[in-house]
């Protein structure tokens, strides 16, 4: 085995291979930074280039780009509070507050370093587990996988901050949104309102970009000024390195969680990074600072999201079962070279496996170094008045949301969820449980369905299930004890300024949530037995919690909202409407013209920059997006009026 590893390593002495790797790393870094674009976009852009290469060069290129996407996506999450890819949403919780406190350098360097170590641990684990990977994967049946998912869901309990009721409701809403679409075995369509778009559910990219991205952008715009005060970055990045060394245990545990999330089918990078975040909070002695800029909240998910990709190679290469869309494309590329991954892969193509592992490890290191090198410059982005950054970010977010399914439904969903996310943020509803619930609904339901239809109720008595069940009980106990033991965690970012919204909107929002869950519960009566379990599990507790929350809010004393509340609310509505307007412009005039109009009017008319500045800015935004459209073969429907 080690011979093959060395032969594969020798290939990298070839400048051609290194050039391919660098090309992949550069592409991955850029795509990772762009909000909403992740591994799929990366491989889709590079795929047309591989048809003239040999299989090793092609794998070096593709794997090289995949390995760094989850390193560089952190940049957007930390600096702008908008997920660079869905898997980077967990990093926002603590990374973005750190950036606002002027510690962007520290957060970024800690993130890159833990990403790199996570990736390397993933690669090492991948290598060591090659001989035993097959039995390892076969160890987990549907019931055990189900218990793992439930354990992951229970972590949502740790993310509720100081508002357990709101957090619980938020998780239930996530579960409810996750159960939109066809039930796992296609038996019934739930909450689709006869819309074909909703048959497959709302895509993750749209949800992550909406709940975190749009909400944050509107908020930053309304706040005005720049993201962080212009202070000396100093040796912030050195502090980040020290943080990682100090919390090396979190890095190792986070990486291992990531590797497993990759190996086990259906979990994926996003759920993996949330699980890693949840475990960091669960195991911390002091939880006060989480959500307000605790460096451990950056290190945990970042060490996980790179190793997920390494773990994902195991089912892809040894079982021919890809864990996510990027590895599915990788599998397709292997088919193209006449290689069908499977049990024989280790015997017949061991050197190719090592080419992949080495590419992953080397690209990881180079990518982290590159990002680290770029980060002082990138951190300065937080000093620019945000309104000047906003048009470019908005255009990329729309672009990113549209590329996953090329359906306008994604953009409607993103805007709607953006409003929801903003309201949740203002009213002190934690958003993390919402995303955890949403991400884990599909696999949990699938494994519940499989366990019950395969084993009936017997699945509960399997030894693996019992062990994981005990772990689940321990986790719940921990969570409750942590709460009652005075280790209160304040709601995310609640400490900032006066709440814009007072008692009346709060009551209205809770009533609205109550109405939605009650209607969903009423609707779920008509679903067949297995298809109804999930909507009911989400809505029945949600109804009780919503009623309790409503009573609490009605009894609360009327807090005086800040003096500038009314104009600020108006301003926020205005910004939100400008996004809706952008969408309407796209529908009417097509994407190119709409982008140009939106960017120019926003800059010249609203931000009041010089016309030349606005013109050059507009030109570059339009140019870059059109180039990206071309590369991704992205199709924008022509506008109704022009085209």
């Amino acid at each position, binding site marked *: 085995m080690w011979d093959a590893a060395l032969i594969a390593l020798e290939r990298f002495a070839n400048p051609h291979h290194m050039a391919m790797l660098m090309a992949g790393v550069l592409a991955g870094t850029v795509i990772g930074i762009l909000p909403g674009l992740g591994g*799929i976009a990366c491989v*889709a852009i590079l*795929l047309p280039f591989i*048809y003239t290469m040999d299989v090793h060069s092609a794998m070096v290129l593709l794997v090289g780009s995949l390995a760094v996407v989850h390193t560089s996506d952190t940049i957007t999450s930390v600096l702008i509070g908008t997920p660079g890819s869905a898997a980077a949403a967990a990093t926002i919780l603590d990374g973005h507050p750190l950036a606002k406190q002027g510690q962007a350098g520290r957060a970024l360097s800690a993130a890159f370093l833990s990403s790199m170590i996570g990736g390397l641990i993933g690669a090492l684990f991948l290598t060591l587990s090659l001989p035993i990977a097959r039995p390892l*994967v*076969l160890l*987990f*049946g*549907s019931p055990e996988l189900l218990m793992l998912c439930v354990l992951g869901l229970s972590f949502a309990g740790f993310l509720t901050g100081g508002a357990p009721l709101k957090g619980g409701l938020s998780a239930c809403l996530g579960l409810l949104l996750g159960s939109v679409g*066809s039930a*796992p*075995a*296609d*038996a*019934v369509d739930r909450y689709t309102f006869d819309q*074909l*778009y909703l*048959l*497959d559910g709302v895509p993750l990219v749209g949800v992550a970009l909406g709940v975190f991205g749009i909400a944050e952008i509107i908020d930053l715009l309304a706040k005005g000024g720049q993201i962080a005060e212009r202070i000396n970055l100093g040796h912030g990045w050195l502090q980040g390195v020290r943080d990682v060394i100090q919390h090396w245990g979190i890095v190792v545990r986070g990486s291992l969680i990531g590797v497993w999330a990759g190996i086990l*089918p*259906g979990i994926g990078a996003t759920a993996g990074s949330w699980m890693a975040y949840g475990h960091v909070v669960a195991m911390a002695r002091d939880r006060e600072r989480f959500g307000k800029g605790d460096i451990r909240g950056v290190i945990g998910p970042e060490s996980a999201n790179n190793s997920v990709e390494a773990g994902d190679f195991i*089912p892809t290469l040894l*079982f*021919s*079962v*890809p864990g996510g*869309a990027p590895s*599915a*494309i990788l*599998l*397709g590329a292997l*088919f*193209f*070279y*006449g*290689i*069908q*991954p*499977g*049990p*024989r892969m280790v015997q017949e193509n061991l050197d190719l496996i090592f080419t992949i592992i080495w590419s992953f490890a080397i690209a990881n290191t180079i990518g982290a170094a590159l990002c680290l090198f770029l980060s002082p410059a990138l951190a300065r982005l937080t000093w620019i008045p945000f309104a000047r950054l906003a048009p470019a970010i908005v255009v990329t977010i729309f672009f990113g949301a549209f590329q996953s*399914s*090329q*359906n306008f439904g994604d953009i409607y969903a993103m805007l709607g969820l953006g409003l929801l996310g903003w309201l949740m943020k203002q009213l002190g509803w934690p958003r993390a449980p919402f995303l955890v619930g949403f991400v884990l609904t599909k696999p949990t339901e*699938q494994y519940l*369905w*499989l366990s019950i*239809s*395969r084993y009936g109720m017997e699945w509960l008595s399997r030894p693996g299930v019992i062990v994981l069940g005990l772990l689940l009980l321990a986790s719940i106990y921990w969570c409750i004890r942590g709460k009652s033991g005075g280790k209160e965690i304040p709601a995310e970012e609640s400490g900032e300024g006066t709440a814009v919204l007072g008692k009346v909107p709060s009551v209205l929002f809770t009533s609205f949530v109550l109405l939605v869950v009650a209607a969903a519960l009423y609707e779920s009566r008509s679903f*067949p037995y297995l298809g109804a379990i999930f909507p009911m599990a989400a809505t029945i507790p949600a109804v009780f919690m919503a009623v309790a929350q409503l009573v609490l809010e009605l009894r609360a004393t009327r807090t005086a909202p800040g003096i500038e509340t009314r104009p600020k609310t108006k301003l926020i509505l205005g910004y939100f409407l400008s996004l809706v307007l952008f969408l309407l412009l796209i529908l009417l005039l097509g994407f190119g013209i709409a982008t140009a109009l939106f960017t120019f009017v926003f800059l010249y008319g609203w931000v009041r920059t010089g016309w030349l500045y606005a013109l050059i800015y507009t030109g570059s935004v339009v140019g870059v997006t059109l180039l990206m459209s071309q590369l991704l*073969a992205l*199709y924008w429907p022509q506008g109704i009026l022009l085209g």
Partner: protein
Amino acid sequence: MKKIRFRAGWPIGRWLAVFGLSFAVATQALGAAPYYEGKAIEVIIPFPVAGGSDIWIRTITPYLDKRIPGTPKFNFRNIGGGRGIPGMMEFAVKAKPDGLMLLVSSATNYFPVLLGDKAAKYDFRQWKPLLVNPVGGVMYASPAAGIKRVEDLAKAKNLIYGGISAIGLDLIPLISFELLEMDAKGVLGFRGRGEARIAFERGETNIDYQTTPAYNATVVPLIQEGKAIPLMSFGQLDDSGNIVRDPAVPDLPTVPEVYEKIKGKKPSGKFWETYKVFMPSAFAVQKILWVKADAPAEVLRVFYAAADQLGKDKDFLTKTDKVLGGYPLLRGDRLEKTIQQAFQIDAETQRFVREWVGKKYRVKLD
């Protein structure tokens, strides 16, 4: 020697006549500019990136474009979701009769039509198949279920099959179980055939099927280790539409052959009728590249010619073998009748299938 002199005195009309004549001669001699010269073809893929059909078309086009005069550029548009219906409708509504928009389809797109799904408002009769790629399927079982040979199926008890959805490709194995009157039930909800195979290896299920390429790569090693017993293939169609042995696995009997072996008579009955309707669209004509039926004749001609050339191209055949599954890439016109027949279903069979999946697998069809 006489000097060649420019005839300046000619009127403009004569110049034009000469120019026109020489142009006509030139085009006659060189042949008209190819139809696809400098054009781009947009291929609609009604699935997300990296699905089976997506990989299929993306793998063959780098070979296909060189064989088409004018080497058009192929652009792909994945319209995923909604059981493939939005993508199919996009083609049905937007494609013009110019051969510049094509569509890739797979079994997922045929079953809504066969099952009478009202949302599937597309009509295959308005399109023509350019290229067709059959796929095969092989069933195998676990020796732990007490099966050593295919004949043991009749007395095997408690067979459990892992599938994705009762109204997808899994319909074929599920119908086969009913046809052969086996004591088997389907556990549905897996995300893909690969995950279902992992469940088989884990012992959660004990009967399974894989498409032939996946079978060769991932199941044959299991058979060699004694962990799986090959049973039968779903068969392929011959030129007159009869179900015959699958050329990719010629040693394995087909489902109707196994029926004869077990029951001692030719298959008949409702389940047999259903099998005959659904098997071809699920496997024998699974992947199809379509164009609007009123496209220029040249479009059809160049694609058929390209298919013929690719069939003789060693490099293409070896490189794409895994993606094509060991089956030839066929010209659409050869199979046109079979294909159009494959999408016909009589009202009685349709009602029967809908009732059966509704009762046995609780599928609610509108």
